[in-house]
């Protein structure tokens, strides 16, 4: 049924339809609405049998999921940002043990400086953890990807993270075709664990592994991700046959046929980029968009197939490796190592900075006319940064940089307001 619904609520309802048996809740913005809604569904008995556990930390949340999954329970939690970092040891452990579970990551920046708004720094911080990472472009995607995530996770016995942009998606009210219980039950069979704590057949899970076998166990994790790369498109097709609309897959293509310039991105920013690209095409520019739906495993072959014929590729991403540059851009570059394609890496939307169509258009125009730097920070106020560096050079105790730069920006805003007020004065 088509509903006008908040993203978090849509995800909560979608997760509930997957009949999870253990859900952990620990508050961190912007994922709170999801677990709150699930808490209501458990309390009212609409979702049963299910244990809803208010834990004392994200580290405990992930640990409870590990215990639940190892006992054959379908387990779910949601987190973001600092919360993900706080649980990171258990995040790696869940993947290392090969325990299926699903976690929503309501993507949010990582401090310091503390910032509750959206970017992809959190997801990127665990990209090598062994979890499968799927990125939602819309709330429809978010609702659908969770159902696929449970299926995928349990089939290949690996944890799956569904990434959805914090606030931008989690708090947006928009239309979502909500799945029915009947369809979900058809698509998602009951959880049959590959390994389980069972009094009838006792096993030891999580034993120490020495140099003699560690590489093999780790390689198996890689092999399973490669397997997932095969299964993801198949599961996406099966999903479409049951639910009647498409979702998931490794990548998404938009106006990509014979595009000279291709923009690569992940998550909700794809919507704004598509609007920008439509405008550019209307102005005669040959340009298309490649969305990365599955970031881990990274679809190297598909990216190569779609981009190797392009003249230039502009990767726009909401995170970066400090001291290096774009992260997604690096993966794209790996995919294109055999191709002759000009590559540009653009960092945008950090800490909730709006990614506007106007900025994207101007950036892409620069790219098309080869005026774009190989690494660009979109809409960055270079002047404020330069001033802070100068301040650092002047004084051994230049103070907390974030506060200095914030003050600098406020001063700029005030002087702009003054200028405008002066220009509006008659005469």
């Amino acid at each position, binding site marked *: 049924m088509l509903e006008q619904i908040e993203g978090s609520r849509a995800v909560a309802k979608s997760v509930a339809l997957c009949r999870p048996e253990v859900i952990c809740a620990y508050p961190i913005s912007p994922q709170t609405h999801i677990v709150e809604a699930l808490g209501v569904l458990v309390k009212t008995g609409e979702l049963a049998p299910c244990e809803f*556990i208010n834990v004392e930390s994200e580290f405990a949340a992930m*640990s409870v999921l590990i215990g639940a999954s190892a006992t054959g329970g379908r387990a779910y939690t949601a987190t973001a940002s600092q919360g993900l970092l706080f649980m990171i040891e258990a995040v790696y452990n869940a993947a290392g043990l090969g325990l299926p579970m699903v976690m929503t990551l309501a993507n949010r920046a990582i401090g310091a400086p503390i910032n509750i708004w959206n970017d992809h720094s959190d997801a990127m911080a665990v990209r090598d953890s062994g979890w499968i990472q799927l990125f939602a472009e819309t709330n429809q995607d978010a609702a659908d990807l969770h159902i696929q995530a449970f299926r995928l996770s349990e089939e290949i016995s690996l944890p799956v993270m569904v990434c959805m942009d914090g606030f931008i998606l989690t708090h947006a009210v928009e239309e979502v075709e909500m799945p029915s219980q009947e369809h979900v039950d058809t698509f998602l069979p009951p959880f049959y664990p590959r390994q389980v704590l069972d009094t009838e057949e*006792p096993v030891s899970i999580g034993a120490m592994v020495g140099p003699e076998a560690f590489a093999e166990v780790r390689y198996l994790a890689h092999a399973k991700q490669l397997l997932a790369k095969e299964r993801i498109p198949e599961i996406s097709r099966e999903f479409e046959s049951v639910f009647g609309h498409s979702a998931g897959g490794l990548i998404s293509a938009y106006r990509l046929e014979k595009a000279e310039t291709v923009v690569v991105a992940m998550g909700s920013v794809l919507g704004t980029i598509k609007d920008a690209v439509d405008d550019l095409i209307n102005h005669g520019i040959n340009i298309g968009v490649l969305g990365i739906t599955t970031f881990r495993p990274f679809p190297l072959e598909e990216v190569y197939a779609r981009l190797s014929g392009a003249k230039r590729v502009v990767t726009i991403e909401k995170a970066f490796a400090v001291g290096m540059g774009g992260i997604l851009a690096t993966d794209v570059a790996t995919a294109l190592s055999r191709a002759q394609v000009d590559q540009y890496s653009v960092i945008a939307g950090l800490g909730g900075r709006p990614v506007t169509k106007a900025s994207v258009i101007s950036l892409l125009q620069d790219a098309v006319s080869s005026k774009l730097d190989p690494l660009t920070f979109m809409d960055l106020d270079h002047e404020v940064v330069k001033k802070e560096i100068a301040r650092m050079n002047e004084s051994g105790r230049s103070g907390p940089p974030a506060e200095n730069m914030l003050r600098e920006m406020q001063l700029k805003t005030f002087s702009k307001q003054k200028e405008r007020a002066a220009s509006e004065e008659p005469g």
Partner: protein
Amino acid sequence: MTFKPIKFYQTGSFAVGNRLLSENLRTVQSDIARSDSLTLGHRACQGCGEALGARYALDAAMRATGNKVLATNATGCLEVFTTPYPETSWQIPWLHSVFGNTAAVATGIAAALRAKGRQDIRVVAQAGDGGTEDIGFGCLSGMFERNDDVLFICYDNQAYMNTGVQRSGATPPAARTATTEAVGSEPGNVFGQGKNLPQIAMAHEIPYVATATVSELHDLEAKVEKAMTIRGARYLHILVPCPLGWGSEPSATIRIARLAKETGLFPVFEAEDGEITGVSKIRHKLPVESYLLEQRRYAHLFAPTENRDVLDKIQAIADRNIVRYGLWDQKTEEDGNMSIATEQ
């Protein structure tokens, strides 16, 4: 506390001989049908108190539940010496995740069992003192506070032994560890630090908290069995001497554990819903030196010269315990009776 006096014990050691008891009073360990939850072939040191404690506790839990126990384990000696890949000494379903999350993993197991309607299967979480008092404390407190249906057992050997004997929140004052070396003007661990986990557990008002040592097997087993009759969060703190970390003879493990209790340095008691309901009395009160002298971690208190000040401070700790918990009175001393917990 349901105590029943037993008159038969070995002179000198106070060990209770099973063969002198009627069959229904004998320990689980003396039973040929015991489950051997933690079986032979593991890689623990000779005289490892933790290996004994874990074996006693889990076999007792298995008997109490009709062999329906799922166990989880923090990182540490017990985890490492029981599962040298690809072998395992665990004859029961066992899960190790990471160092600090054992209590939460156990919560997850219990939750999944509840969702599946399998409350006949019980959960035992195990950790050393580091995994309990230090790195695992947050998850443990959360599990207690939610009153999750888990028995958490702390095998307390008073330091991080797996990594080479470093100080933990359970390391006693004056004890030498690799991070509290016996050097300087105040050798060994400092006074005035550390935490009392059983008391902290009691402050959560969970249904059952108990302490035990590996020296009194009847008592330990009875406490595990009692814990398994209760639903909700339960905590059992077992003192397990570590020959490696304490610098003691492997053959002295049981005796040292008993001396910890007999000197009053390790109070053995149980508590229900936050109130102490019973204590194991000291039978022959001994000065703390008798306990300390057996352990090289305290050698700096006796050589090159005796450090009377520090010994007095340690004795003061024992004396305070004796008063605080009512560990000793003239009558029990005269009777010389061993008290053991039994079903009544």
